[in-house]
């Protein structure tokens, strides 16, 4: 056979067949884990997404808690008291500045809570207005996304699961709505709803939320569900082809049971990511409309309306613009970054 020349310390025992245990030892497989755990781990490692998440949580918490404990309220014009003449010393205070009346109160020994961001032209504490505006923006963003999510999911599932004529009709409607220039339609609808809705809901509990916010929700419900429904439909269509649906069918499961048990759970990661990215765009839209005056009713503040009101006195009080500007940007940025992080962590296609 061969001549083998080698200088080597040979231990004859080495040529005994190796045991299975020894072979196992060589192979160190990487520990496997579930999709969800993998994703969360990845997300955790993503520092940017993590920081963004913390920021969102902090902002949300403060927007909920602070108005409850702050001594000033967002609509309270501090110089206006029933029965007394208007005291304009509260107006247009700079951050941490005190008005004349307030200074007198301090001299008299009373403690006056500082105006961290000063006051606006009507004597309202600006800090709490910003915080309250944040609360409105976040709430609108969040609930609008939920509405979009619900409507889009329902319609998309129906369309995707039943197919055929139903699917065709729904998709045509989706196409039409999709091709409408959304912002213009939103402005149009908001304008009209503003006029018509206010008298309509007067006296009902809805009036306390404000007709404009409701009209915002209506607008979102009418127009923005389309991309979500397309997404869901696509998911369902691809999942329909999966084997286990066939096998479930074979055992006689009913249509809706199939939808609930098999198809929906698999869409969840895609849906959650999409919903997460909807929130910043809803906030975007709301602040835009508020800026134009189509958003929340005065005196309720929104970051958008605060910004637009700040334009008037911009040269003298630039911080009135900068603060809501930073706030909106921070919120939208954090939500976007977090959504990106979610997508990077959970989207199976992106993981090589």
């Amino acid at each position, binding site marked *: 056979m061969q001549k083998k020349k080698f200088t080597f310390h040979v231990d004859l025992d080495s040529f005994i067949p190796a045991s299975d245990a020894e072979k196992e030892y060589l192979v160190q497989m990487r520990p496997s884990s579930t999709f969800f755990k993998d994703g969360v781990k990845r997300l955790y490692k993503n520092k940017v997404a993590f920081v963004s998440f913390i920021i969102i949580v902090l902002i949300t918490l403060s927007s909920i808690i602070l108005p409850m404990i702050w001594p000033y309220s967002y609509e309270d014009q501090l110089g206006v008291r029933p029965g007394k003449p208007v005291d304009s010393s509260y107006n247009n205070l700079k951050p941490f500045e005190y008005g004349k009346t307030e200074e007198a109160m301090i001299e008299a020994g009373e403690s006056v809570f500082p105006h961290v961001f000063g006051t606006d032209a009507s004597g309202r504490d600006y800090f709490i207005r910003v915080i309250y505006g944040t609360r409105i923006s976040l709430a609108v963003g969040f609930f609008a996304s939920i509405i979009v999510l619900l409507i889009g999911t329902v319609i998309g599932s129906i369309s995707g699961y039943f197919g055929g004529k139903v699917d065709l009709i729904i998709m045509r409607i989706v196409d*039409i709505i999709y*091709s*409408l*220039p*959304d*912002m*213009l*339609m939103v*402005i*149009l*609808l908001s*304008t*009209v709803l503003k*006029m*018509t809705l206010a008298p309509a809901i007067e006296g009902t509990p809805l009036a306390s939320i404000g007709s404009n916010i409701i009209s915002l929700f209506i607008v979102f419900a009418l127009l923005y569900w389309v991309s979500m429904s397309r997404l869901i439909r696509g998911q369902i269509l691809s999942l329909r082809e999966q084997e286990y649906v066939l096998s479930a069918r074979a055992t006689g499961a009913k249509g809706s049971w199939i939808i609930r048990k098999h198809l929906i759970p698999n869409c969840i990661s895609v849906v959650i990511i999409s919903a997460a990215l909807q929130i*910043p765009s809803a906030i*975007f839209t709301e*602040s*835009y409309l508020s*800026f*134009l*005056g*189509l958003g929340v009713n005065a005196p309720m503040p929104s970051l*958008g309306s605060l*910004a*637009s009101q*700040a*334009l008037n006195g*911009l*040269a003298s009080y*630039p911080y009135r*613009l*900068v603060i809501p*500007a930073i706030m*909106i*940007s921070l919120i*939208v*940025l954090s939500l*976007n*970054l977090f959504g990106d992080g979610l997508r990077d962590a959970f989207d199976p296609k992106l993981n090589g």
Partner: protein
Amino acid sequence: MNTKTLLYIVKRILLAIFTVWVVITVTFFVMHAVPGGPFVGEKATTPAVQAAMEAKYGLDKPLLEQYGTYLKDIVTKFDFGPSLKQRGRMVVDIIMDGMKTSLKLGLIAAVIAALIGIVLGAVAALRRNKFIDRVIMVITTAFVSMPSFIIGSLLLLCFSLLLHWFPANGAASGGLVLPIITLALYPMAYITRLTRSSMLDVLGQDYIRTARAKGVSGTKVIFGHALKNSLIPVLTYFGPMLAYIVTGSLVVEQIFAVPGIGRQFVSSITNRDYPMIMGTTIILAALIVVMNLVTDILYKVVDPRITLE
């Protein structure tokens, strides 16, 4: 151009016309939900205007007939009715006046956004994960998260009020610089990111490897093979970009007091000038629809693989 492409184009044009019709219809019927209808102001208008309206629109006639008249006037005469607030002026004239400035603003912003965006995106893709890439990504992420009115307001504050580099009034000379920059920033950031990811995707494709294996030089691979393919998804953004510029101009013109169609629109909203609101909505929507149509057709021409839906 073969018949398949032609059929596609015809189909798209028909769809566009249909969409514009839907817009007109929706606008008309939605506006009629306003108490009293869109052609009656809240306060009493002058008897002359009132009489003109009655004659023209038959305000007591059934709704569908009013709709028919409205539609007919638009399609045959481009007549959107008189403005309620600007006495004696027709909506369509006011809009055309404003369009001159707004078109200039929008087109320049679009071109700047596209050019700079594509260049930056390509640079970022080619220097992936290096310093310049990270810088570009951070800046674009920031701009993509800021609404146009925020950017505009901040620019106004910084460069106009504080530094006095540019006038705050859009009508003044040099007054269009800040508005253009404001409008261009978001699309530019978006295009940069889009180009970058598209190019990264293309660079990983097999045919790029084939080109290298043939001995094609690095530069030629990028500019000849990769760039052409990378730009295709970017092209699809042009339609939405123009839509953004249209809606963005509403606030930007407001902030910088630019005498354009956007500012007109906003004041007509505040003033409840309903014929103006309707007319502007329809015209702007039609503009966007046409832009989307053009983009769709271009896309089909550029990428021969796209099949009909």
